């Protein structure tokens, strides 16, 4: 393959510190000292439990969020002196205005909040609350839920069009979209013989039904949502949480994945921009680097996705939309690109390393339904791929958030077929294990300290676990959250607790495998598309520390550090 000259690219870094240094000594939970605290009440004077309150110091990219307890009390750790905005971060169905105050050293500052019903209710509801509160038939609600509110929640709640213009938007999105419910990141000429969705029978009839319904519920005039069904806030243990929010230091960041290396550094990839970034949680410093334009084929769109670390703790990610693998050397701060050796564009979404065999696993598809799993041996520059036998049926993604365990086994989330696929690392043989719940849609997974594979069952609102010893799958229901859409499991291998984010509810769930008990935590914003729960190296049973990235359509991407006890 011809090799062009190196494309020039820039190493871009921004040092962003959290204020002028975090007050680390006072961040021991549950806060020996506090400089900001108060009470949250309803208009009737009743204490409100489970409300999230944010404090953000002026001219910083770091903010803190804490939760009110059963008495309505909230308490921040001792914060640096300075000018702060203190606001209600999350109180579904309710609202109160923010406060701006000057925190001074040595003085305790009380701030009281009284919450009233939200005036514009659809701006204070999760996508689930909104869907459950809509007038219309279950079929109508399901049509827009299934077509419009999978990945990017909140979009419909933030736009109003009449029928003709909803039809315009729907036709545009459903033509440009290649897979899933994305916003049309990629569009290209169909492969020969490919059947675009817009040519399928009934496509525009379906568009008309959706446009009709959306023009009623998100048309020129708002509908009455004063009796909206709002999910109950988690209480009790769910209020023992503090979140530190780190805003990404470039605009319109869309963090697809994060991961934590063995040194405790938090890395991110971006779905839109060609950036790999790193947060040092101890200092709040954030850096990011621009990856080069891939060689060998035209770049479809920059952006990465999953992250994995090799034996030298170098970061590997994917060249997601053009097709290939990308390595970032942490010592030299240089990228190495491995473009997949064919001409057409490919998606590469999953990556996992097997250091013992010097393999970097991936899966890839050609955008129109032919999937491969495979691995690269970087030093030999050798690609090995296995074509995936998938069942016939409606076009959809075939495999997604696959998992490598410590022994180099590769587990595939064969979500359309609802199987967990195991590739034997020695023979390349594929064995399938169907989920007990049909059509559960295993989406993304992770492994625990016993090499058990935990995965989200996206359609079933459950967490599944494949035990390599028994070769059986056990399922755990996530209770009390309709339309949950659990996206991706992350395991804290210090405790083997399993964490999964719920898309439409903007919640994080923790499963304790020893008891099967789950705890839910509210995330500090709506419609954030949080993903990739990953544990800090210092996480313990008494003090869990989990990181999440966000991929919002409203506001900028962030990394959340979520501490619970």
């Amino acid at each position: 393959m011809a090799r062009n000259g190196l494309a020039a690219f820039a190493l871009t870094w921004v040092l962003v510190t959290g204020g002028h240094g975090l007050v680390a000594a006072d961040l021991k939970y549950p806060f020996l000292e506090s400089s900001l605290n108060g009470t949250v009440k309803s208009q009737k004077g009743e204490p409100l439990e489970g409300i999230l309150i944010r404090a953000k110091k002026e001219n910083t990219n770091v903010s803190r969020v804490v939760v009110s307890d059963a008495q309505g009390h909230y308490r921040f750790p001792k914060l640096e002196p300075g000018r702060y905005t203190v606001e209600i971060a999350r109180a579904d169905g309710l609202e109160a205005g923010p406060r701006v105050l000057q925190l001074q050293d040595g003085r305790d500052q009380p701030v009281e909040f009284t919450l009233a019903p939200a005036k514009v209710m659809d701006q204070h509801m999760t996508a689930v609350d909104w869907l459950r509160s809509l007038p219309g038939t279950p079929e109508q609600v399901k049509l827009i839920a299934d077509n419009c509110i999978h990945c990017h929640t909140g979009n419909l709640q933030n736009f109003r069009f009449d029928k003709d213009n909803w039809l315009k938007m729907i036709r545009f999105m459903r033509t440009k979209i290649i897979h899933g419910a994305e916003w049309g990141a990629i569009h290209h000429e169909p492969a020969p013989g490919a059947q675009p969705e817009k040519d399928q029978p009934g496509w525009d009839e379906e568009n008309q039904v959706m446009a009709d319904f959306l023009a009623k519920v998100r048309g020129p005039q708002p509908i009455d949502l004063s009796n909206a069904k709002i999910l109950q806030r988690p209480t009790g243990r769910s209020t023992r949480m503090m979140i530190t929010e780190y805003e990404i230091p470039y605009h319109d960041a869309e963090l697809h994945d994060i991961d934590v290396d063995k040194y405790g550094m938090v890395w991110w990839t971006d779905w839109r921009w060609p950036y790999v970034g790193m947060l040092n949680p101890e200092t709040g410093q954030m850096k990011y680097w621009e990856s080069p334009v891939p060689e060998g084929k035209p770049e479809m769109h920059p952006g990465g996705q999953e992250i994995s670390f090799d034996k030298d703790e170098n970061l590997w990610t994917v060249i997601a939309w053009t097709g290939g693998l990308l390595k970032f050397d942490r010592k030299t701060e240089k990228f190495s690109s491995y473009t997949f050796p064919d001409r057409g564009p490919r998606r590469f979404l999953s990556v996992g390393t097997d250091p013992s065999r010097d393999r970097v696993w991936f899966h890839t598809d050609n955008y129109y339904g032919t999937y491969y799993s495979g691995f690269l041996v970087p030093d030999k520059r050798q690609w090995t791929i296995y074509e995936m036998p998938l069942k016939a049926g409606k076009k959809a993604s075939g495999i997604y958030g696959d998992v490598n365990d410590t022994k180099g086994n590769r587990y595939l989330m064969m979500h359309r077929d609802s199987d967990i696929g195991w590739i034997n690392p020695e023979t390349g043989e594929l064995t399938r294990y169907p989920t007990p719940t049909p059509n559960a849609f295993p989406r993304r997974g992770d492994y625990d300290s016993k090499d058990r594979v935990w995965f989200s069952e996206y359609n079933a609102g459950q967490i599944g676990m494949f035990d390599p010893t028994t070769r059986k799958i056990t399922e755990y229901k996530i209770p009390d959250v309709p339309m949950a859409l659990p996206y991706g499991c992350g395991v804290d291998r210090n405790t083997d607790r399993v964490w999964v984010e719920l898309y439409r509810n903007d919640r994080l769930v923790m499963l304790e495998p020893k008891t099967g008990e789950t705890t839910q935590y509210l995330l500090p914003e709506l419609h954030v598309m949080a993903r990739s729960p990953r544990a800090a190296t210092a996480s313990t049973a008494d003090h869990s520390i989990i990181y999440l990235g966000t991929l919002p359509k409203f506001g900028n991407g962030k990394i959340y550090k979520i501490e619970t006890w």
Partner: protein
Amino acid sequence: MMTKSFATLGLIGLTALCLGLPVAAQSQKEKEGPALSEKAQKGKAIFADRCFVCHDVDSARVRSLGPPSLNGLFKRDKLVTGKPVTPENVKEIIKTGPTQGMPAFRYTLSDPEIDLVIEYLKVK
């Protein structure tokens, strides 16, 4: 539990030329444009939430979905409608969505919000 075993299907071993060439890096800070006015800052925030998804403004590598880039809009002679580039004509396009792809934003954005977006577009 039912299992199915498959022989390795379509095993293909490919050897690629070395494309894993380390690429040297240069330190460079993110370019910061001139400071925006308060109104343009607010307009930028609205643009990021409502317009950016289709009208990419800044990047050479992030390809447009088809709608025109709005970089340098107010330096052009004409809009896609053929009318001169004036705040009033830009506002008309945003509100009424006269082209095949652009929807009418008159129910999504208020007049003051559209004015703020235009303040931002004037400096991009």
